[in-house]
């Protein structure tokens, strides 16, 4: 398809071409063979073991042609080896096709005590927790999730010391666990991530808060352009949630996608009280004004309200500056 300016674009259709199915079968066979070859390579060549073991985790392309590079003996992943989080578990069963989500809990994580799970997705939401909450010494990391996908390769390159998703617990109040997601989770990993994470927690008595962000350009409203001011917070809650949200509810035709949607779906069908907040912002990188918006969400987190307010009184301005200057 040619655009007005003469560029040639491939036409994208939401429908899957029926003929692709047959090709897909073939692709699957090829990928399976490549995986087997790759596994054989790992164990036969000890010198390259580190790189070769990581390569399938980092070469998550659906295209067989890219993967063929690895099978042909070129073991260097698209992301440099030094950028791989050092604690990423090396699991021979993790293949390119399966795009597994691996959860690892540290000793003494004791997740059964958790009654409040706070999940932050997106750069502003994750930065808000980093700046406003996790700067206190009373938080300790209790686990992390390792994700292999194409989107995380860039993130690997930027933050070599931090995995895509980390769980923190407050030493004084073990009932609260924070999950900070700063990496990218593929569409076909989101359901699996949610099932695995929630499978580790006791469902009875659990309440969940999700903080997420979205570009304001995706917000649809009849009179948005004239009346709204960014950033602003909107929320959506499951039927079992009884709290009175401190911000307006998301209205039609806006939707939640990604991890917030996967979490809300899971909690809706499992009757776990959950509120998801989405901050619409026009800033493309984390900024303090957008982060401030999330404070509103923390005024309704049930019995931990006073506890969170204690943290939120400290703005950590200096830290914000350091953080933003990176």
């Amino acid at each position, binding site marked *: 398809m040619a655009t007005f300016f003469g560029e040639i674009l491939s036409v994208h259709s939401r429908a899957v071409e029926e003929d692709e199915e047959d090709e897909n079968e073939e692709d699957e066979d090829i990928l399976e063979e490549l995986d087997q070859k790759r596994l054989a390579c790992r164990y036969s060549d000890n010198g390259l073991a580190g790189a070769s073991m990581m390569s399938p985790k980092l070469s998550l392309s659906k295209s067989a042609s890219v993967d063929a590079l690895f099978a042909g003996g070129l073991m260097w992943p698209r992301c440099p080896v030094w950028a791989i989080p050092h604690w990423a578990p090396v699991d021979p069963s993790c293949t390119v096709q399966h795009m597994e989500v691996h959860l690892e809990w540290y000793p003494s994580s004791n997740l059964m005590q958790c009654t409040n799970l706070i999940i932050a997705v997106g750069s502003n939401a994750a930065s808000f927790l980093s700046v406003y909450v996790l700067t206190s010494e009373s938080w300790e990391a209790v686990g992390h999730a390792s994700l292999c996908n194409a989107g995380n390769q860039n993130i690997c390159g930027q933050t070599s010391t931090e995995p895509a998703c980390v769980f923190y617990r407050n030493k004084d109040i073990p009932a609260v666990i924070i999950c900070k997601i700063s990496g990218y989770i593929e569409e076909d990993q989101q359901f699996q991530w949610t099932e695995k994470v929630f499978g580790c927690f006791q469902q009875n008595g659990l309440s969940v808060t999700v903080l997420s962000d979205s570009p304001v350009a995706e917000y649809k409203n009849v009179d948005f352009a004239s009346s709204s001011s960014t950033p602003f917070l909107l929320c959506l809650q499951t039927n079992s949630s009884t709290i009175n949200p401190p911000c307006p509810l998301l209205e039609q035709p806006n939707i939640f996608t990604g991890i917030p949607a996967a979490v809300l779906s899971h909690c*809706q069908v499992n009757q776990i009280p959950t509120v998801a907040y989405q901050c619409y912002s026009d800033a493309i990188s984390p900024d303090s004004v957008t982060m401030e918006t999330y404070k509103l969400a923390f005024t309704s987190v049930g019995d931990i309200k006073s506890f969170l307010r204690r943290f939120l009184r400290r703005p950590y301005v200096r830290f914000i500056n350091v953080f933003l200057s990176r």
Partner: protein
Amino acid sequence: MFIPVEATPPSFKDFTLILPAIAVGNVAQLAVDLIVSTLCMRRVGFLHTDCLVPMVGPSPYATSAKTAGELHTTAEDAEKKLAVLQIRSPIIHSRSRKFRKVLVSWIKASGFAQTVVLSSSHAYQRDDQQLKGTPLRYLVTPAMQKTSGTALTELGWMEMEKVSAFPGLVDTNAEPRLSVPGGGITKGLFTDSCQEELCLAVVLVFCSEGDNVPDAFTLVNHLNDWLLLVDNDKRGPQKWKVPSSWTLLFGNSHPPSIF
């Protein structure tokens, strides 16, 4: 996996199921929205599966501020005289076969009397014979042919033509084949249903990407001629209730401040 909203799961025994195929222009989903909205169907459950891209939103059929905060997820069922499955997000490509299996096994287990798949296909890929007459076509499985084949023929509906394997070439050995370009899982689901001896019909419309609301009305009116979902005396789009989620289908209006 079907998860009922209430403690007692609904019985779908001998019900008619209508479901959309995620296809070109999302015509089928729009048509299903019209059916659910017009018949004021209530939600009875979710199809919770890893085969669909996660998505949630407020009630798509909200008529007042009170119901606007209700949560709706990827797929849902509503029940009255018939059951309708709405699918609100794309199928993850690598799991489309699994999704078809999930659907077929659920349809069999629930005991639906018949299943109607609404779908669409690329208008630009029609061959000469498909260009003739109405853009609406149907397909029925052998099991469905026995029960409803005559009714559809009497309505004057046109069956989806098979296309030659090598257009333009005369090859006596190549058999014409069924092709639904842009139809998503339509062909796969139809083929699976034939093998599983399900009572299934596909009703589809040829269309192009763009404003597909008129196509949705065409499709749902066509379906109504057969299933008589609403009173056929009313003419035109007035008999169908457009849901609130159809607002701003093409984004926000222009910001006045730019002038």
